[in-house]
């Protein structure tokens, strides 16, 4: 039996130090990937949900959670993945969206629940702020992003897709 020396708040604070492996400027809490922390009699359980079902970063995130908590003495820890409810960009915090923008990635506009808005949006260039942009490719370097180009400053940039 584990004598619980850590409360949920403390564990969440530790988890907030773990960056998203693909977009290191935001952490896994800001991305909305951590669903819950359960403190049980025989250990700690962190419940996460993947952004995309094939997201290759999930393995690394799981390993990072375990090693980071372990280093702080939060043991034993298990990580469980759940699919329900399905992750949505609506769970990204405003802070995370601002960080994405400052990093050069246009943040998601809204939820993908709004099907008509799935595509053909006006995406603002994160570099110069112009709305004169066009879609280069619906799919980008990671599952969560699309490629755009700004017609004002001519720079290509990534857009975090609504999901």
């Amino acid at each position, binding site marked *: 039996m584990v004598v619980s020396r850590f409360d949920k708040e403390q564990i969440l604070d530790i988890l907030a130090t773990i960056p998203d492996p693909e977009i290191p400027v935001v952490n896994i809490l800001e991305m909305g990937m951590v669903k819950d922390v359960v403190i049980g009699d025989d250990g700690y359980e962190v419940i996460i949900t993947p952004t995309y*079902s*094939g997201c290759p970063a999930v393995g690394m995130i799981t390993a990072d959670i375990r090693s980071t908590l372990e280093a702080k003495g939060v043991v034993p820890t298990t990580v469980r993945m759940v699919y*329900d409810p*399905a992750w949505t960009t609506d769970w990204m915090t405003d802070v995370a969206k601002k960080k994405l923008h400052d990093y050069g990635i246009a943040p998601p506009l809204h939820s993908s629940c709004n099907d008509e808005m799935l595509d053909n949006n006006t995406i603002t260039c994160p570099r110069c702020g112009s709305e004169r942009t066009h879609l280069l490719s619906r799919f980008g370097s990671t599952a969560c992003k699309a490629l755009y180009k700004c017609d004002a400053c001519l720079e290509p940039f990534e857009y975090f897709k609504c999901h």
Partner: protein
Amino acid sequence: MTEQQALYKYSLRLGDNALILSARLSEWCSNAPFLEEDLAVTNMALDLIGRAQAMLKYAGEVDGNSKTEDDLAYRRGERDYYNNLIMELPNGDFAYTMVRQLFVSTFELFFYEELQKSTDATLAAIAAKTLKEVKYHHLHAKDWVIRLGDGTEESNRRVQQAVNQLWMYTGELFEMDGTDALLMKDGIAVNAEHLKMGWIQMVTQILALANIELPADGYMQSGSRMGIHTEHLGHILSEMQYLQRAYPDATW
């Protein structure tokens, strides 16, 4: 057949469809017409791998013989695979791959919309997740089929040829057997036959925009529900499973 066996087979079937189509799409990696499309097909393949992983993991749990998703992917012969034949057909040209993508993703739009209401909580959760991704795949395939069909004489001819050749593999998507019947009683499985009308309507509408004629309904290929496949599946598996067959339990 018990409900447990039926659920095992149903999850395998859904996992196999995703796994085999993913393998086919991956073959375009570095071979697509241009860079952006290379990213697109491999992104879709990645979504499908994720779905296959979730479905096969669940199949292993239902089966209860401590088989992992990797055991199920790498250690089954083709007669134990239940993916629809359309998934395993060679890619053909780019038009052919996009027409298949259109047929399959349109079916999946309807299918996963229903499966997310399944009384089986795991299938429902995977379905809700999948549906979001499928909408994006469908949008992409639809745009390409319209663009190519409504493009040059050459691109129109190739799309029409792909539609004609693939049509006989679409009937199987809506087939049902004892597995489906058993699971439908408890609201676990989707009634695929009910999806056919919506599918035909949507596909007809898109093909009309692409100036493509709908083929006449004729002979439909069948067999995958019984593990009977085209010659192509064996070739996919021999490549995919080589390492685990040659070096069982290899890890790195």
